[in-house]
């Protein structure tokens, strides 16, 4: 496991308590999991994705990540409708381990853009991890 000060935590995204991140990309928002989450889970072997068109509220479970011996649920950082899923993860779930911020999981059209402001900054997220 990585030491906390070795974690990569970009500044241009918002983080949740459950270790998801959200990045605004024009009209849509991409969602993935943090370096901390992928490191804790270890080798990811399976990603369960929602369907395009599914609608979720902030905090809803939208999918799961699986390692060999654990299942981690994924929760929405913001409310919205799924407009794209990263199908590359179906055949190569390890992309999340290799590049947690490049390997987005879903892309949504947010229904309440103001929710982004409620997410943690990188500094606040690191404070949270340091407890």
């Amino acid at each position: 496991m990585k030491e906390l000060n070795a974690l990569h935590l970009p500044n241009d995204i918002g983080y949740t308590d459950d270790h998801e991140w959200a990045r605004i990309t024009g009209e849509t928002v991409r969602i993935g999991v943090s370096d901390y989450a992928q490191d804790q889970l270890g080798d990811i072997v399976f990603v369960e994705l929602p369907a395009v068109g599914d609608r979720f509220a902030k905090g809803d479970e939208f999918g799961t990540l699986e390692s060999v011996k654990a299942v981690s649920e994924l929760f929405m950082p913001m409310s919205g409708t799924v407009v794209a899923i990263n199908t590359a993860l179906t055949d190569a779930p390890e992309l999340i381990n290799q590049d947690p911020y490049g390997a987005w999981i879903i892309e949504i059209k947010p229904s309440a853009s103001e929710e982004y402001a409620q997410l943690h900054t990188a500094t606040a997220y690191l404070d949270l991890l340091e407890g």
Partner: protein
Amino acid sequence: MRYLPHTPEEIASMLATIGQESLESLFDTVPADCRMTNPWPLPAPQSEWELNDHLRHLAGAMGVNQQTKVLVGAGSYQHHIPETVRSLAGRSEFLTAYTPYQPEMAQGTLQGIFEYQTLTARLLGMDVVNASMYDGASALAEALLMGLRIAKKKKKVAVSRAIHPHYRAVVRAYLQPTAYEVVELDVLADGRTDLSGLAELEDIAAVALQSPNFFGVIEDLESAAVAIHGIGALCITGFTEPLAYGLLKNPGQCGADIVCGEGQSFGIAPSFGGPGLGMFGCREPFTRNMPGRLVGETKDLEGRRGYVLTLATREQHIRREKATSNICSNQGICAMTAGMYMASLGGTGIRQLARLNYDKTQYLKAVLSKAGARIPFASPVFNEFVAEFPQDFKPVRERLLAQNIVAGLELGPFYPELAGRYLFGVTETIAKHTMDTIAAEVQA
């Protein structure tokens, strides 16, 4: 007691090491009001030789013996079991191991189960087969629950009335506390399931048929699968006699999505109904919805072929209340045994043996018909069939019992409308002269 190795000196020395006065004081944390105070009225301990005598005595209390010819199938089949299978399955390296949680020291179990999964998948025409369920009945209940999981929002399943009545009872017990409803499909005059009403049913996640069904009748699975898929439901097929697929089209070929049944026929003694073997397979897209353990192939640190339990995130020890099933212990050694049996038969042998079962069944059907019996269900059968007799069959059955033949199972207790009709099962263990004897008694 020969299983308890401790000498009094050893006990004293061990108690001294841990600072306890006596064996009783080890239990000081157990409050007095939780204690067992009643003496146990158990029989006095028996020596190995006394126990042998006792079991021989119980064996003698049975109304059947090794020479009895039992012409009853109905979910449990008397087939010859090769001594090789009995002896290999009894090897204690297999028998006294736990679930293969440490794969490096359980490769025998793991490769053996991988081979079982593979041979069973080939037999049933499925993409994936798990490491076993408890029995054919619980496998069917789990298959229906799996169908409901896959369908997500649908609330009903339909099962044929020609499925083994005990299996349907287990399905009812499993589904009773849930919000799901079980609809039963009637049996046609030819002994096959009536699917004509399927289109009117709504909200059906899955439809289950058994083939050969409880009456021995081979269902038209191909047409059934088309009809079932036509209402957007999953097609589940069950079986109690897997040997049938040594001869008949397999369920996968016919379009089944999930196949489940009882594998006792494959080298496992009837043993008053258990342990048997719940066989369970499905098409590949449904793998992650399957209940039960799966063995998968992988490589070790040095690149050598090896086997592990895999896709365990479906299971209770990881996903707990969200698991695909609560099953933990399964029927491991029975699956190994079935693998050994399938390996012993081979592709050539299974065809030959299935054919022999079929031919003998046709023979009994023919001689009984000739003796005046009527065969109410006209559809083709594998190794069981229903017969009805011009006169009361009970006295005939009694006379046959006196000749050490158990002739058929009365259907009245299971299907009131079939009272007085009998279900016969014939395997390779039944000789022509036994069948001739039955026919002669019917005619007498």
